[in-house]
């Protein structure tokens, strides 16, 4: 069964087509990643699917309900964790959760009990009585996600949940997403990081300039891009021209000179053994290597490969408060 079916969703802000004919099919129970740079249309797509924005054209069904004509039913089944942490900074963590509990229909006592349970599960029990403005970014994000599961949603929208978080907080958020998925909640995850989509998602749609430009499993996507890059930094930039020759011969592939005058990169050979040999060849030729890395393709490389242009931020980002948004029927 499909949890999300979107066909030809379009949304313009002024003369900018933020979303320009997006099609999505997300299987129920999946973690689905929407990958793209800032301004690609990810947030606008999520806001339409979460019934916060009405599409200019196109249709979408979320859990079988139409996002425009059955918006209220959709709201009863999904929850949204937006890009800005959507919690009230002036209130304490516990009060935030009690408020959401009350708004979802719990009695005062039930809402309190639920808040305590969630604070504990998310490692926030010690901070529950403090105002959210004193929380770290990671704590705020965890509270935000906790607020989204006061009642377990059937589908959860997560908009860049780890942007701006330190690595430990990021791992915690990833653990939470995995736990959600293990419970059968469908997750639509927006992210700028291939790594994040790779870690969490069963399927990925790459979005650029309002359109889905590629779709598949993480491994299909990476395979389509190539195997990432071998990056090498030399101790002595003077030796770079010679290193270029040696590498080109050893790898049998083109070598790119990086902006860093001591750095070079090349597409990973299919067999990692060959990369190791290439490095050994460098030292045999008397070229000192400062460090090297065999990396997954970065989002930049995915973009370059898929679109032929780098994943730069679009000039017109999605406005936080838009002029042109239209009413969504209640």
């Amino acid at each position, binding site marked *: 069964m499909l949890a999300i079916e979107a066909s030809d969703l379009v949304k313009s802000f002024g003369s900018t087509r933020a979303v320009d004919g997006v099609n999505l099919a997300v299987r129920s129970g999946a973690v689905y990643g929407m990958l793209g740079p800032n301004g690609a249309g990810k947030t606008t797509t999520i806001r339409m699917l979460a019934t916060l924005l009405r599409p200019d054209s196109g249709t979408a069904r979320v859990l079988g309900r139409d996002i425009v004509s059955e918006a209220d039913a959709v709201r009863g089944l999904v929850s949204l964790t937006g890009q800005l942490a959507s919690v009230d900074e002036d209130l304490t963590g516990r009060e935030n959760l009690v408020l959401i509990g009350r708004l979802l229909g719990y009695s005062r006592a039930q809402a309190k009990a639920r808040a305590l349970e969630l604070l504990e599960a998310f490692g926030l029990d010690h901070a529950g009585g403090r105002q959210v403005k004193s929380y770290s970014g990671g704590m705020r994000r965890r509270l935000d996600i906790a607020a989204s599961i006061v009642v377990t949603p059937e589908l959860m929208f997560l908009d860049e949940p780890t942007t701006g978080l330190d690595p430990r907080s990021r791992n915690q958020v990833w653990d939470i997403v995995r*736990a959600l998925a293990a419970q059968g909640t469908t997750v639509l995850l927006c992210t700028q990081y291939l790594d994040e989509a790779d870690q969490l998602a069963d399927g990925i749609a790459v979005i650029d300039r309002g359109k889905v430009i590629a779709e598949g499993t993480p491994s299909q996507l990476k395979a389509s891009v190539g195997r990432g890059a071998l990056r090498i930094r030399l101790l002595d930039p003077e030796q770079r021209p010679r290193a270029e020759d040696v590498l080109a011969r050893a790898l049998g592939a083109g070598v790119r000179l990086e902006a860093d005058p001591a750095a070079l990169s090349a597409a990973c050979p299919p067999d990692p053994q060959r990369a190791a040999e290439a490095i050994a060849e460098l030292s045999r030729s008397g070229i000192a290597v400062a460090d090297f890395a065999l990396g997954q393709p970065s989002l930049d490389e995915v973009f370059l490969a898929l679109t032929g242009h780098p994943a730069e931020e679009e000039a017109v980002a999605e406005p936080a408060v838009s002029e042109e948004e239209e009413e969504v029927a209640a």
Partner: protein
Amino acid sequence: MSAVPTAPARSRSGPLADQAIGAALSSTPRPARPSALSACLAFGWRGILKIKHVPEQLLDVTLTPVLFLLMFTYLFGGAIAGSTGEYLHFILPGILVMSVLFTTVYSGVTLNTDMTRGVTDRFRSLPIWRPAPLVGAVLGDSVRYLVGATVVVVLGLALGFRPQSVPGVLAAILLVVVFSFSLAWVFTTVGLLLRAPNAVMNAGFMALFPITFLSNVFVQPDTLPGWLKAFVDVNPISHLVTASRGLMDGTVHAGDIGIALGVGAALTAVFAPLTTHLYRTRA
């Protein structure tokens, strides 16, 4: 060298127990949707919590009327009414109206702050009666109105103000609070149209200063030039002030109360739906 290994740092905010999250997820039967009223009350509760956590915001509400009452009574009392005591009797209902009306701007400021912080996204994605966040917030703001009103009346009593009837004073406060609810909708509309909380504050005060000063809050309109008197006489604030004065000294005309309530009803009828519409489309 000590051979005692350092325990891995599993602090309380460290790695989370997936089982705990799993358990928290699975233990939630979905409750029945709340009624429109209980959703509004929950938002009203939120407004009161915000006052509890940020009590500084009551400073404006309490200090401004104190300053106004003291300054105007002692500065102009002798010149305008012959004695400060006489003038206090005249000006107190006016200051009550003015101070409480000024606090209505905060309804717009709070709403705008919510919008810029993203918390409205969560409220709008909940399956609740859609105007509930707005109605609840405006209800919660009544606490501010009551605090402002109480400060004015208590300070007035301390300075020697003696109303004719206590129920009259309470009725005047009630009338001013009801009118403020209506006026608050104007500023929630402004709050959704402007981009920053400060802009809302400035716009609100820029509008309220002339409209409250060009009324009968401070002086009897008899001495004013004809064109100004004409404006003051039709200014609904004048009718609200006259009604409050009348209630406090027992000479009220039903007409003034009627006009105040009528204008309040009209403001609500226009601006409450407008705010709701903008909240759905712009927030």
